[in-house]
Structure formats: C-alpha cells, structure tokens
C-alpha cells in the first residue's frame, strides 16, 4: 500500500518544477553537484513549504487532514493584476523606453522580494545540522538552497511580468516576445546571484555579532541602491512632446553601471538596428551574466562553510534603553502590559529573521520620500518658495510599511517559546497584542516618522507641527487597525516559512488605496479648513487613547 503511494508521487504527480529541473540536470552535474541528492533536498523542502506549521501543542495526526497547498504560488495572481498598470508603456512606440520601464520595475520588485522574503532560506543554519552531517557536500546543499529560492523567484518574475510579456507577443512580435520572456527569467537569476554574492562576501569577511548587523545593513543598503538606481534610470529619458508621447533618450556610457539597462539594449538592436551603444550594452549583459555565474559557482560552497558563524553567539550585554523605559512608562498602563512591551522590544532587537524581513521595507519607505524631496528642490525655479503641499505628504509614505510590520509580529524563529504565554495567570492576548503593537510603533515607526517630519518641518516651518503630530496619531491608529485585522494568533507564535513569503506584500499593494485616501483627506482638510487641525488632533487623541487602553479585547 505504501509502495503505491510513493510510486504515484514519483510517476504521476512529479511537480512541474522538478520536471523542469530534471531537464537541466546536466548543468548541475557539470558544476560538481550531486544531482539526485540535490533533487531530493529540493523536493522535501518544497513539500515542507506547502504545509502549515501545526499550532501550539498541535496533536493533529497525519498530513491527510489538511490540504497541502503552497500559499505563495496561489497568491501570485495579485502581482499580475498589479502590474497590469505597466501596460501603459505600450502607448509609447519606443521599445527601449518600454522595456526600460519594465525591467526597472521588475528588478525593484524581484530584488526586494528576494532580500526581504528569501534571505532567510539562503542564510538558514538548521540544514547544516540535519543535512550537512550526512554525506552531502556543501556545493550540493548550496545548489539546493539556491534552486529552492530560484523557483520562487522565477515564478514571481513570471507573475509580475506576465501582462507585459503577453502584450509584447501581441504588439511587438514573436522575437521580442521570446526575448522579453528569457530576459525576464535571466533578471530573476541576476537578483538571486547578486544576493548570493553579497552574502558570500559578507559571511567571509565578518563574524560574530558584527556579522549579523552587517547582514542587516547590507540588505538595507542594497534596497536603497536599487531604488536610487530606479530613479537614475528614469533620468535617462525626457518626454519632449507629451501630446505625441514622444520620448528622447540620452543614453551615454556613464549609464552603463545601471545594469537593468543592459537588459534593454537587445530591444534597441531589434527595433532600431545596429548601434554601438546598444551593442556594448548587450555585450555587457552577456559578459555580466557569465561573470555572475562563474562567481556564483566559485563562492557557493563558501557560503555554506561560513554560515555556521551566524550561530555563534557571544555574550551580548543587553539592557533596556532610555527610550524603551520611558516610552514603556508612557504608553503602557498596567504592569502586565509593560512586561509584554519590553518582551516585544527585546525580542525584535535580537532576532535576525525579524530584521531581515522588515529592513528592506523600511529602506524603501524612506527612499521614496527622500528622492521626492530632492526632486522638489531641483524642480523648483530659483527664487521661488516651494509650497508646503509639496512636502506635507512625504511622511505618509511610511504608512506603506505598516502591513509588513503588522504581519511580521506573528512570526518568530523561536515560535515554540510561546508556550510560556499559556501559563500566565491572566488572559494574555489583548494586553500582549496591545503591548507589542505599541512597541513596534515606538521602536520602528516613530523614529522613521520623526526623521521625515523633521525634514518636512525644516522646509515648511514650525507652523505645521500640529499637522505632523496628527500624522503620527493617524499612523498609530492605522497600525492598530491593520494589526487587529491581520494578526489572528499570539505575537511571535508562528513559524515563518517560504510559502508565506508574500503575506505582507499583498496587503501593501491593497494598502496603497486607503493610504492615498487618508493622506489626501488629512492634507486637504488641514490646509483649507480653518482650525481643522485642532479638531483632528482632538479626535485622533481620543481614538488613540481608546485603543491604547482597550484595544484588541473582544
């Protein structure tokens, strides 16, 4: 009977991705990977991703009761839906312009997904104990991890790129369609390769507590570079005739560091014929891809051998900071809640996985406002005063961080430790959630918001202080609502798995609409209705006190 089940699995239900990888097995073998072991590890990892982690003390038997479904794949359609807006590019007749927009978007999306959601798999140390002690070499384990992430990234890229790919076939012909398809897949592999190279370098150079910090910093700086690059790419083009949608391109060799442009050059060759710039860029793409592959191949086993450094923990004298103590006194109204507050604060301080998930989002929520400030300052004619409306909306960008933040607090590497909360003599859920939400508000959102608000106040004057304060109160309220909506379990009580990688991202996309509405209402009402800001201040203070005292209780 048992044999039957297993045979069935092997012959008829071989997943699509495994069949695909079987076709590529010769590449793995050539690169010195034990293919059958690699395939086995990959198969088991994907199977585990499809299963939900059993809850606390879950004594449910067997895997038959709940359906095995990989949440990641079944939620991809949202990305296709979102990137439908990219189809606007086909209004322009310039292929280079079309695909510059497309590839810039693709790179930003894929790379930030890679950093935020899949770094955890690449940097996982559990495999070293369970698989590394078996006769599996590092190259094979490394290849399994990279392929595991690669499958997700390729699927993600296909979902994001689907609308543009389909339209390319229809509008720009078969050759362009095939080209955009393969280059999109290549772009996904680039994201994976770049991330792996950065991690390999960092793991090699640093160790101990510093290593963990530097991993987090490298993620932030990579995200920032990506978005600055996105902005720089946009500078290449100028709309010279808005009516005819004519764009002018000033592509020079100085732009050759912007590697997404390398992906665009082949389309230039295709539409406009031979040009030295395009040829050089296409050449760079080929050389770059080759180099990336060689470098990856060379560093892959080094990542595994240096990964153990991540687990070495030295004594880390951690104490409650001034901010933590003061804010705890201020926003928590009873001792139990204060205890949870400090717990949440300290846990998120040391957990690398939490930072890995959140920091890229923090970076992107900061970069957009900064780029726009710069835009504002450069776009304005000399001598003219920039209007306050150009700045007031900037802090609202941080609102986009809230969905990811709210989702993140459910997860922890040490989710099993949550049995402690079953033992507390008082009902734990409401004060716990309140406390952790407050901790996140003060620890993560407040500093970000304060920094942006200061920039805004610097340009608009102190008269807008109340508006900034109101903004913060709106934040706090939205964080509460979003946390209440999305967190169904106790904080830090669930295990984070790859299939849940895009939980917060989906919410972020949907979130754009309410964020936009709220920001507009806030700014417009306060600018044009006299004394509105004071009324809003009163109302929001009331609502905030209410959630801070009674929030989350049923």
């Amino acid at each position, binding site marked *: 009977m048992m044999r039957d089940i297993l045979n069935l699995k092997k012959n008829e239900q071989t997943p699509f991705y495994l069949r695909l990888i079987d076709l590529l097995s010769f590449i793995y073998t050539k690169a010195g990977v034990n293919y059958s072991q690699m395939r086995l590890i990959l198969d088991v990892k994907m199977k585990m991703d499809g299963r939900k982690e059993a809850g606390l003390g879950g004594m449910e038997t067997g895997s038959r009761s709940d359906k095995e479904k990989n949440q990641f794949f079944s939620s991809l359609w949202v990305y296709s839906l979102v990137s439908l807006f990219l189809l606007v590019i086909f209004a322009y007749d310039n292929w280079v312009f079309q695909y510059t927009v497309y590839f810039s978007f693709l790179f930003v999306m894929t790379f930030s997904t890679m950093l935020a959601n899949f770094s955890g798999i690449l940097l996982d140390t559990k495999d070293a*104990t369970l698989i590394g002690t*078996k006769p599996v070499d590092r190259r094979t384990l490394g290849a399994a991890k990279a392929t595991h992430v690669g499958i997700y990234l390729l699927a993600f890229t296909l979902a994001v790129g689907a609308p543009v790919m389909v339209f390319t076939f229809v509008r720009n012909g078969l050759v362009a369609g095939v080209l955009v398809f393969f280059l999109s897949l290549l772009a996904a592999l680039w994201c994976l390769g770049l991330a792996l190279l950065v991690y390999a370098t960092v793991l090699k150079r640093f160790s101990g507590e510093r290593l963990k910090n530097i991993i987090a910093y490298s993620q932030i700086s990579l995200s920032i570079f990506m978005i600055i690059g996105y902005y720089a790419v946009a500078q290449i083009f100028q709309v010279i005739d808005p009516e005819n949608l004519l764009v002018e391109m000033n592509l020079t060799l100085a732009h050759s560091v912007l590697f997404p442009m390398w992906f665009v050059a082949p389309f230039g060759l295709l539409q406009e014929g031979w040009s030295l710039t395009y040829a050089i860029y296409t050449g760079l793409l080929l050389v770059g891809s080759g180099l990336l592959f060689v470098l990856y191949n060379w560093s892959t086993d080094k990542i595994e051998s240096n990964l153990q450094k991540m687990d070495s923990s030295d004594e880390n004298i951690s104490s409650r900071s001034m901010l933590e103590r003061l804010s705890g006194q201020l926003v928590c109204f009873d001792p139990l809640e204060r205890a949870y507050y400090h717990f949440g604060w300290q846990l998120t301080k040391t957990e690398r996985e939490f930072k890995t998930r959140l920091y890229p989002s923090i970076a992107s929520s900061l970069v957009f406002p900064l780029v726009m400030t710069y835009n504002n300052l450069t776009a304005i004619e000399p001598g003219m005063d920039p209007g306050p409306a150009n700045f007031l909306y900037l802090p609202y960008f941080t609102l986009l961080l809230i969905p990811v933040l709210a989702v993140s607090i459910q997860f922890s590497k040490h989710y099993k430790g949550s049995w402690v909360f079953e033992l507390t003599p008082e009902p734990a859920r409401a004060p716990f959630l309140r406390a952790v939400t407050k901790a996140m508000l003060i620890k993560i959102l407040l500093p970000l918001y304060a920094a942006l608000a200061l920039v805004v106040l610097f340009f608009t004057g102190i008269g807008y202080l109340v508006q900034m304060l109101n903004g913060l109160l709106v934040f706090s309220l939205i964080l509460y609502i979003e946390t209440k909506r999305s967190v169904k379990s106790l904080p830090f009580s669930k295990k984070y798995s790859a299939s849940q990688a895009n939980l917060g991202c989906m919410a972020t996309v949907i979130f754009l609409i309410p964020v936009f509405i709220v920001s507009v209402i806030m700014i417009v009402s306060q600018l044009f209705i006299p004394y509105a800001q004071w009324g809003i201040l009163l109302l929001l203070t009331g609502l905030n006190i209410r959630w801070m005292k009674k929030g989350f209780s049923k």
Partner: protein
Amino acid sequence: MEPILEIIDLRKQFDGTPVLKGVSFSVKPGEIVGYIGPNGAGKSTTVKIILGMLSKDAGEVRLFGQPLDQSDVAYKARIGYVPENAELYDTLTAKEYLLFIGELYGLEETVIMSKTEKMMEALGIREAMNRRLASFSKGMRQKVLIISSLLHDPDILFWDEPLSGLDANSVQIIKELLWKLKQDGKTIFYSSHVMDTVEKLSDRILILNDGAVAADGTFEELKQEADGTLEQLFNTLTGFDQHAALAEDFLLAMKGEAPHDA
C-alpha cells in the same frame, strides 16, 4: 590497533573566546567512549568539528586513518550522528523524514522503508509513523534521531546526549543496543550528563573541562586518581565541591532573602 579517530591539539575559538584549548585523544575501533564535561566545556564543538559543521582553528583530526578533508564528504556515510538539541524538520511525518535521510545516504527506498518500520516497531513508535514530527514528544523525537543515525549501518557513532528525554524502558533498550552495536564492531563516541550510565557503559571515559582533556582512561584507571563514584571524580576534576552551598543560595534567592557570604 590503529585508532579510528585521532585528535591532536585541536583548538577553536569563537569571537576571541577560546572554547577548545588544545584537545588531544584517540579512539580505537570497537570502543565505547563516554565524553563528559560540564556545560560549555566544548563537547559539542569537538563533535561538530569532526562532522565538518565547524572549521578548526588549529590542530589535527584524523578519522578512519585519514586527515579530515572537507572537499570529500564521503566519509560522512560511515558516521551516525545524533545532534544534541533534537532538531528535526517538524512539518514532515516521521516516515517522510526517515525516508529523506536514508535517501541522502544513498539507500534504496524499499530498504529504508523496511528498516524504518522494523526499527520504529522495536522502539515502540511505529503507530506514529505517519504523524508530523511537530506532534512528537521529546523522547519520540530522540528515537527518530537515533533511527536516522543508524539507517545506513555506520562504522562510528557520534551521539550527543542520546538518552535525553527517553523513558526508563527506552533507556534500557538503548543501553542494550549500545552493547550490541559494540559487539558488532561499531565504535561509539557519546556524551552524557548521567554519570551512572557513563560509568557502567563506557570502555573509556574522557572528561573535558574548560576546553582541555582533564582525564582519559577506563573507569578503573580513573578511580586511581580519586575515590568513589564517577560523579565524585567528575566533581573533583572539574573543581566543583559546593553543590550544597549553591542549592542553599538558590533557595534563599527564591524566598527573596540575602545569601550567606560566599
């Protein structure tokens, strides 16, 4: 007889803190060696280096008569390993997990399944075969780990705390199993905190203290150095003689009173 495992002046530090300060010992084939020492003495670090999970800073490790070479992992097929903190892939069932591990060792599926079933039967967890590991108790997880370390019939076993979490009956089975494995010619290198067991079970005892070998020999030999049980010897060698006073201090702390001066 040539030693199956030889360690010479092994050194390792983490972030500037030395954990192994020149550990040397050798193990002959067919020996049962008990590797004991206080928490943090470096027991697990030694084993992790042998298994290639950590790199050494200095010294030499020779296994099966060869210097350890990380570029060729084939030697790991002759090792059975039970890690200290019963980590498993929790979302898999026991059957799936063991099948996975067995296949990593290159065994045939049919072979693995028939071995697994019989081994689980013998350890009394066969009916849990199709349950997720997440629902397993600590003892059951330990049994799964023990089975997974023996599926491929290895030559040398590294077992970190093999008896932890097991009930009294299971402990007896495992002890008996260790004897039988020894008779079968296996070398067994295990660590434990249960002195009683170590005293009775081991051909040789290695005491590690503060990153160096504090004692090495049969129990009879070690008794020459200090009288009484292994526990007393252990205390002497690790310089620990204050258990009564410390327990007292602990109790006072619980009551919220000031401790006696130390």
